[in-house]
């Protein structure tokens, strides 16, 4: 696939549009059956993954090198400043994860529990979101470092 700036932005925009619309569908249509949750997750992963590939292969080789570098360092940033302090602490402080240790009679348990797939999707989405944020931060750092070097 040859370099095309237009195709890259179209594919990237479509990834965001598909993810946002699927999330909206998921939020609007309740209750969620396990089948619906799995079907939506698989659709999002398949379509976003496909479009992501199109976007990646629409870049030229130098841009791909930069993207790979940014995703690598972005991943490290996400683990250091996102995953470790945020996800681990949050998962240990949510009542949903503590529900089996909280006696039902105490009334402290969460009033509404979703299916495990929903929590898995939230966790996976959060990690992916942090990776995306980390990759954007890495791009900014590269740009600043490049300017500093002249």
């Amino acid at each position, binding site marked *: 696939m*040859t*370099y095309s*700036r237009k195709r890259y932005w179209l594919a990237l925009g479509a990834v965001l549009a598909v993810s946002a619309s699927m999330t909206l569908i998921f939020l609007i249509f309740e209750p969620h059956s396990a089948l619906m949750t799995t079907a939506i997750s698989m659709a999002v992963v398949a379509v976003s993954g496909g479009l992501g590939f199109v976007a990646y292969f629409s*870049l*030229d*080789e*130098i*841009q791909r*090198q*930069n993207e790979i570098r940014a995703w690598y360092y972005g991943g490290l940033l996400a683990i250091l400043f996102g995953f470790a302090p945020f996800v681990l602490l949050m998962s240990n402080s949510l009542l949903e994860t503590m529900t089996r240790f909280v006696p039902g009679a105490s009334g402290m348990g969460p009033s509404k529990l979703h299916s495990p797939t929903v929590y898995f999707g939230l966790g996976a989405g959060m990690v992916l979101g942090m990776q995306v944020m980390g990759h954007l931060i890495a791009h900014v750092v590269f740009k600043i470092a*490049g300017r500093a070097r002249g």
Partner: protein
Amino acid sequence: MKNRIKVLRAEKNWSQAELAERIGIARQSLNAIENGKADPSLPLGMRIAKIFGVRVEDVFGEA
């Protein structure tokens, strides 16, 4: 990696955008290669040399 792209480009009177379009890469990528901030692959290096009508070592040798 040092290269003579800037000189060869000036000889042909091409802008960065023009050359980038001929090679099939982004202008920013060409700028990075030209300034030695990024290294092209061998196929891309050969494509650049072919466009200028010179050998690869004439473009990417020690400047």
